[in-house]
């Protein structure tokens, strides 16, 4: 309105500028496009800290597997990839890669790679993999914009795009190099939701179709698709209950569910699970319910008799529930419908994993979230979120109901598992964006009316009822105006704090590749510990190509990807017994462990040890989990044997079993001769701050093959059995 007011002035003052001057709508479009463009670029470059600080490299553990498979895909082609039986992992079982992974990420990266090559950009596949996550994060901001626009208005969309571009909760999983499924999955998740909301809003078959394809992409990319296939039916159910059933919803859900299901079943890893497993049953139940609803609607229309319809309703609903219940019962009893998996249980009951599945509980990112990490990852969004919810409830529509449900459910899951903060992030950003956008809009409109009212008063005078209402508003002007300005300043202050916080978190916490460790030296210089790669490259170059390496499963993917050697267990923890066997070997005495290692054809054993550098996430600190997982399958291994009064120790007071188990021996072999810190006795473990309890370690069946320069990785060779003479 201000612009409209300004244009006549402009006509009077200078005529020549008129032709150059953009119309308000064009101005707005230009602003919007340039803001979006900037946000797009910002989302990309904010994730490049690690590349600038370290190098263009793949991070962490799982991304190495993804990188390896992508490399395979680009070298051998899709058909070979789809039918790949990998004998380099899970020796001697092997792993059917094509059937046990979500290929979305690899195919995406390979497609980008092939496209670039077609356009004569001869990039290395590694560069593509490293930059896939930032690229998709940028795309996510676009989807967030459209989503925000759909549920609120363009302003909210822009704010949502800006918030999600730098939200640490999302950045933690999408920095350059973190080439993991989540990198593309969050994009797919938000896209599916957006298209579905759009489909529900318009009732258009094409949007529903788009949503089905978005779902397909999500299924191909990440196991988190289960969240979609449960949230969408839940949403539909809520709409049904609140009496918001419409043909639009019917079209949207049916199309999305049926097509999405058929498409999802094309992914080998999902296959018939989509109709058979308990996790997918809710969607099917809601689908049937929709048909019943539609049928009832039709009958109601036909009967035109309320009493008769009531009876009919009762009978139909009862029989439908009965049939459904029986079907479910029979299905579950006959084993046709598989029960819920442990992972799913652990989501519903946070204590479940700790008692029943130690392998899930042992992963740090599966721990329940602490309050501090919420604050760390969301910062002001945590306070804006409830405010946004308030605005959503105030303007309830199909779309806002969806975002509210998405926000609340995902926030619950985020509380259960640290890594699921990621799933909640888009919802939190969107809802917070509504809060910011609505607040700022209200405040600025307040300011604007004030500037304008005196003008209108002077030119037109108080005439219509509209202006009179403004006049009544004007009476509280001074207070309102100052208050609005103060609040606006406050909002911008908060938002700038958010930006600063996000940059700081990204740079400090989420941009370390974890494969290269950096520390500050005594003189403030940066010291790099590149021991992991040193060890993996040593394995790759100096061991026989068919050597089998036993290590704890954390390092499996890295050993196969960087060391190019066969491993016994890796991060794809599909076989608990196999992992337990390794855990048992690590926690047994050397003789017993030797038998286990012989039976697994192990040639080398790799342990990670932080005693020299003070690196705390080493195998000794993970050791109790090995004992627990090993003990879960082999009752010979008992956790109390390794503890002293319930305490885990490595010094003189440690339990004898602890001091002589394989893991202890391998970590501390000849460590007793070393002075690690000035003024401390030999064999002083810097990671745990104690002098070790067993300094005279003799190895009988193993020999030291290589130890890296900072002792972080130690590799032992398993000796062949001696002649029995």
């Amino acid at each position, binding site marked *: 309105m201000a612009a409209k007011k300004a244009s006549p002035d402009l006509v009077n003052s200078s005529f020549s500028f008129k032709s150059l001057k953009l119309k308000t709508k064009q101005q707005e479009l230009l602003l919007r496009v340039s803001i979006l463009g900037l946000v797009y670029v910002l989302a990309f470059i904010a994730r490049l800290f690690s590349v600038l600080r370290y*190098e263009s490299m793949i991070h962490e553990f799982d991304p190495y597997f993804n990188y390896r498979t992508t490399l395979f895909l680009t070298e051998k082609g899709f058909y070979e990839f789809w039918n790949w039986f990998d004998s380099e992992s899970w020796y001697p079982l092997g792993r059917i890669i094509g059937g046990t992974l979500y290929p979305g990420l690899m195919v995406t990266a390979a497609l980008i790679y092939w496209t670039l090559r077609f356009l004569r*950009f001869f990039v290395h596949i590694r560069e593509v993999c490293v930059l896939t996550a930032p690229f998709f994060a940028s795309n996510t901001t676009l989807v967030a914009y459209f989503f925000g626009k759909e549920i609120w208005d363009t302003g909210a969309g822009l704010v949502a795009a800006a918030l999600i571009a730098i939200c640490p909760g999302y950045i933690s999983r999408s920095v350059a190099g973190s080439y993991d499924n989540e990198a593309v999955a969050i994009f797919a998740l938000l896209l599916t939701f957006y298209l579905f909301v759009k489909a529900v809003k318009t009732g258009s078959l094409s949007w529903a179709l788009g949503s089905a394809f978005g779902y397909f992409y999500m299924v191909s990319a990440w196991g988190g698709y289960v969240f979609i296939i449960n949230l969408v039916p839940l949403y539909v159910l809520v709409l049904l209950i609140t009496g918001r059933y419409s043909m639009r919803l019917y079209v949207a859900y049916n199309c999305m569910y049926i097509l999405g299901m058929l498409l999802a079943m094309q992914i080998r890893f999902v296959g018939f699970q989509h109709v058979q497993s308990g996790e997918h049953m809710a969607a099917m139940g809601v689908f049937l319910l929709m048909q019943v609803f539609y049928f009832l609607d039709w009958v109601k229309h036909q009967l035109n008799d309320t009493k008769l319809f009531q009876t009919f309703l009762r009978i139909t609903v009862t029989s439908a529930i009965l049939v459904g219940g029986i079907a479910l019962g029979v299905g579950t009893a006959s084993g046709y419908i598989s029960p819920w998996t442990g992972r799913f249980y652990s989501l519903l009951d946070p204590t479940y994993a700790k008692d029943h599945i130690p392998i899930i509980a042992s992963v740090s990112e599966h721990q329940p979230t602490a309050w501090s990490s919420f604050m760390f990852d969301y910062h002001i969004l945590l306070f804006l979120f409830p405010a946004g919810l308030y605005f959503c409830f105030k303007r309830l529509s199909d779309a806002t109901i969806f975002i509210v449900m998405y926000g609340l459910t995902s926030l619950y899951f985020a509380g259960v598992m640290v890594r699921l903060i990621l799933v909640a992030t888009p919802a939190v950003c969107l809802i917070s964006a509504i809060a910011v956008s609505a607040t700022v809009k209200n405040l600025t409109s307040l300011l604007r009316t004030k500037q304008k009212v005196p003008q209108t008063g002077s030119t037109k005078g108080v005439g219509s009822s509209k202006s009179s209402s403004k006049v009544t508003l004007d009476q509280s002007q001074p207070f309102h105006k100052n208050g609005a300005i103060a609040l606006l300043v406050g909002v911008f202050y908060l938002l700038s704090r958010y930006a600063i916080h996000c940059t700081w978190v990204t740079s400090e916490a989420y941009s370390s590749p974890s494969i290269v460790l950096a520390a500050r030296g005594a003189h403030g210089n940066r010291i790099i510990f*590149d021991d992991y790669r*040193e060890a993996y490259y*040593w394995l*790759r170059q100096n061991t026989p190509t068919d050597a089998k390496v036993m290590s704890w499963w954390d390092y499996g993917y890295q050993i196969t990807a960087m060391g190019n050697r066969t491993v016994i267990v890796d991060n794809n923890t599909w076989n608990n017994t196999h992992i337990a066997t390794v855990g048992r070997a690590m926690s047994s005495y050397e003789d017993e462990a030797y038998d286990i290692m012989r039976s697994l054809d192990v040639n080398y054993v790799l342990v990670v040890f932080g005693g020299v550098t003070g690196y705390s996430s080493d195998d000794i600190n993970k050791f109790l989990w090995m004992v627990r997982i090993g003990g879960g399958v082999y009752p010979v291994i008992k956790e109390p044997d390794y503890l002293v009064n319930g305490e885990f120790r490595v010094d003189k007071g440690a339990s004898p079993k602890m001091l002589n188990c394989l893991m202890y021996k391998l970590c501390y072999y*000849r460590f007793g001769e070393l002075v690690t810190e000035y003024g401390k006795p030999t064999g002083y473990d810097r990671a745990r701050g104690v002098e070790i309890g067993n300094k005279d370690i003799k190895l009988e069946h193993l020999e030291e093959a290589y*130890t*890296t*320069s900072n002792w972080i990785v130690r590799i032992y060779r398993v000796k062949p059995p001696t002649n029995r003479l």
Partner: protein
Amino acid sequence: MAARIWIFSVAVALFLSFSSGHDLQIVNAERRIDLSSHIVKAFLTLKVENIGKDPAADMLLAFTPTQIKHLSMVQAMAITGKKKKKTYLPLDVKPTEQPDAPNDTGYFLVSFATPLTPGETVTLEVLYILTHSLEPFPSEIAQSESQLVYYRDSAVILSPYHIKQQTTFFKTPSARVESFTSVDPANRAGKEIKYGPYEDRAPYSYAPVIVHFENNSPFAVVEELVREIEISHWGSLQITENYRLTHGGARHKGVFSRVDYQSRRSISGSSSFNALLAVLPPKVNSVYYRDNIGNISTSHLRTGFKKSELEFEPRYPLFGGWRATFIIGYRVPLEDYLFEAPDGRRYLNFTFGCPLVETIVNKLTIKVVLPEGSKDPSAVLPFTVNQDLQVKYSYLDIVGRTVVVLQKDNVVPTHNVPFQVYYTFKPIYMLAEPFMLVSAFFFVFVASLAYVHIDLNIVKK
């Protein structure tokens, strides 16, 4: 050790008939063999006299079949003048075949600058370099042991000519010599073993000797080196070197103990090496050092006016038989290496060989990637190499770049001499790629303009 002298008395008369009528004899010969690194360098000083009736234009150098297999290069120079005013004149040396060569002897033909008239003498200095000629014995050693090697040669010089007087010196890296074959008179003083002087040895005399000594110098062997030199007429030369390095000495056996390696460095792993030095051109920039799995952070670059030195360490120390692969890449300004020949062609003048000091390269491939649109490439080298042409596609290439591939086996640092690659190139081709980018952007904007202005709706709103 009992000295056994095998005299190749195989038809001296026959030999006399084939040596192209020349009748030469070596009046005095001195041979100094440097065994201090794993590259064996032999310096021969020969005083040759023509005792025949016709002038002699060339003479032969003889090598045993094993030596021929390991021979990396042979150079010869004629010395004129006395002590202080010595002048060296490089002579042309090329391998040659001789019919009836006894016991597969290999030959090199040295052409004199001016034919040797009867009775005239000339002093020659010959340098030949042998690789892979030190055999570790014991062939496997533990971390704490030092490396002992065998060197096999003859106490007398193998030659098709009569040698009146000769001496041979072996220089070992340390005073620790386990044993050496005694061929009277032979004696050792410190790092030097002296064989001779021997008088009046017939042609093809041979007296095998074995020297067993300690050699802990780094046996750095590059099994394969691929150097790619990419010429960009926009002002730089990008060099990428792919190394496959191995420790060619006695194999490491048993444990590798980090405690011993880091605390008792003097006695532990004495034959291993963990630092390498590469001599790069001056004004080098954008140097990187990485391998298949990422950047390696242990390197230091010192740039200078005459040369730059890159000191770097592989990820782990190399013990006998251990391998490491890595890539070194750098960029140098174009104007120092690319010139225009008088006939209008351009030529690249660059150094052949391997930048690493004291290393043997078993197989060296140099790929000179010419800019897109270059024609008629030809390479000029002071020695023979295998040449080939390939096509490479790089950023925004349509027809591909011509690649001149030069391949040579058994390369030593002495091969680091300049070579030239000539080609013709029209500067207009330089504009092809920017033009493509500009037009691509142009089309994007035209397309978006068109999209905004065209109404694609079937139904009029």
